[in-house]
């Protein structure tokens, strides 16, 4: 049974595209066949994170408007052969595809692939409504700060109104030291408000940025903290019970340095 998952957030820049790329690669590393669909039309960047920009021939709008069959537009990943990207258009705007077109396309894709993951644009406008239309599961990405959590709350409300009842939370860019000092919301604060089940807690990790610049998502090397967190999310998506990892607290030396204002 294939699954259509939408990755969404409300607030922009919290890590939807990063999450989509990592989960896609992680599932492919397990041998699953995966299509990633970028619906952030006009602001495409999923291809960059996957290092596939130079291979794009056609885009999502070419497919939904019937100019090419979807197979022609899919870009196969150079390293993970079961991973494909359906890129979006760089020039058109978000109204160039509608929900019905995406539902039809996803139903086609379901016949051939295990997972279809849709990267959603920020906001709750037309682009959001289109992106969620075909999904069975929604992953809501947020950050441990009040404005991001409030936007996630609104998005969860919108998803409910669209009859999506399988909604999971991913908290990204957690900084354990700040949480410890009480300068950042902790998981209890977040769960208190959002009250949906959480399947991912990803630390803020500069390896994410390094990986992005290399065009190879951080999950590939597997040694970084963020990479491990994404690996765990992939396991949970596949139905495994994996406990949340403890983030290393600030070391004694670092604390000493801070105490002396260094």
């Amino acid at each position, binding site marked *: 049974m294939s699954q259509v998952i939408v990755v969404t957030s409300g607030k922009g820049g919290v890590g939807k595209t990063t999450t989509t790329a990592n989960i896609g690669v992680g599932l492919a590393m397990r041998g699953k066949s995966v299509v990633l669909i970028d619906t952030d039309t006009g602001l495409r960047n999923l291809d960059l994170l996957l290092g596939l920009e130079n291979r794009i021939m056609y885009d999502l709008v070419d497919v939904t408007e019937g100019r090419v069959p979807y197979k022609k537009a899919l870009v196969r990943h150079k390293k993970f052969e079961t991973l494909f990207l359906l890129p979006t258009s760089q020039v058109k705007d978000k109204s160039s595809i509608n929900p019905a077109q995406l539902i039809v396309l996803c139903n086609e894709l379901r016949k051939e692939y295990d997972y279809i993951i849709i990267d959603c644009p920020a906001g709750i406008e037309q682009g959001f409504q289109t992106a969620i239309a075909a999904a069975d599961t929604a992953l809501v990405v947020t950050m441990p700060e009040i404005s991001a959590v*409030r*936007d996630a*709350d*609104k998005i*969860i*409300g919108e998803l*409910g*109104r669209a*009859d999506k009842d399988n909604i999971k939370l991913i908290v990204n860019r957690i900084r354990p030291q700040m949480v410890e000092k009480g300068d950042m919301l902790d998981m209890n604060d977040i769960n*208190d*408000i959002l*009250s949906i089940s959480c399947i991912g807690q990803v630390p803020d990790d500069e390896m994410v940025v390094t990986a992005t610049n290399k065009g190879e998502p951080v999950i590939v090397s597997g040694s970084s903290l963020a990479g491990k967190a994404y690996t765990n999310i992939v396991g949970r998506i596949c139905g495994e019970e994996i406990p949340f990892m403890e983030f290393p607290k600030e070391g004694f030396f670092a604390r000493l340095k801070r105490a002396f204002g260094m």
Partner: protein
Amino acid sequence: MSDNVVKFKGNGTGLIMLLDQNTPYPKLEAAIKARLAENAKSFPAGTVIKTSPNGFGQKAQAAMMAIFDEYSLKLEFSDEALVRNAPAARSEHRAHRDMPAGRDERVEEMLVINRTVRGGEEISSKSSVLICGNVNPGAQIIAGGSIDIRGTCRGVVHAGAFGDTEAFVIADNLMPVQIRIADLIARSPDNMEKRDKAERAFIKDGQIVIESIER
């Protein structure tokens, strides 16, 4: 006419549909359709409405559920709907809330929301509102009558929105950004601690006051 045949009422735990026992089924169905066409908008999608099985056959039950389904509402057949509406249960309700007997009429109609009300949502009703869930920051509840929240209230609540100064707000955790009752406004202190006791806000001597209550 359909008003007397089909009635919606809130009790302590949910929304109930009462049907006139003497109306034959086809007429009843038409009356339900008419009532929903008028009122369904005031019930948020997904609201569960209970009704007594009342000897309806399976076919009739399925047909009725389908009507509600069209408005994204859920109809459940349950004996509870019969029992809870017995007069005894209602007077207990009233006593619990310290209401003078004459005001009974007002609490009869109640909008019941069985979920968390999230940021950006606004619930408004001419009647009282019962929320079995949280009211999140950025959400707004406006009621002609009182507001009862079985959960944490962090949004904006306005009871007695049409001038009823006897209206009140109750929550398990009352920590709203603002409370309005009739035309009075109280805002929360700038740093609000989480409460561990249910509280009630009401008007006393021309001011909104808050007291803790048992429930």
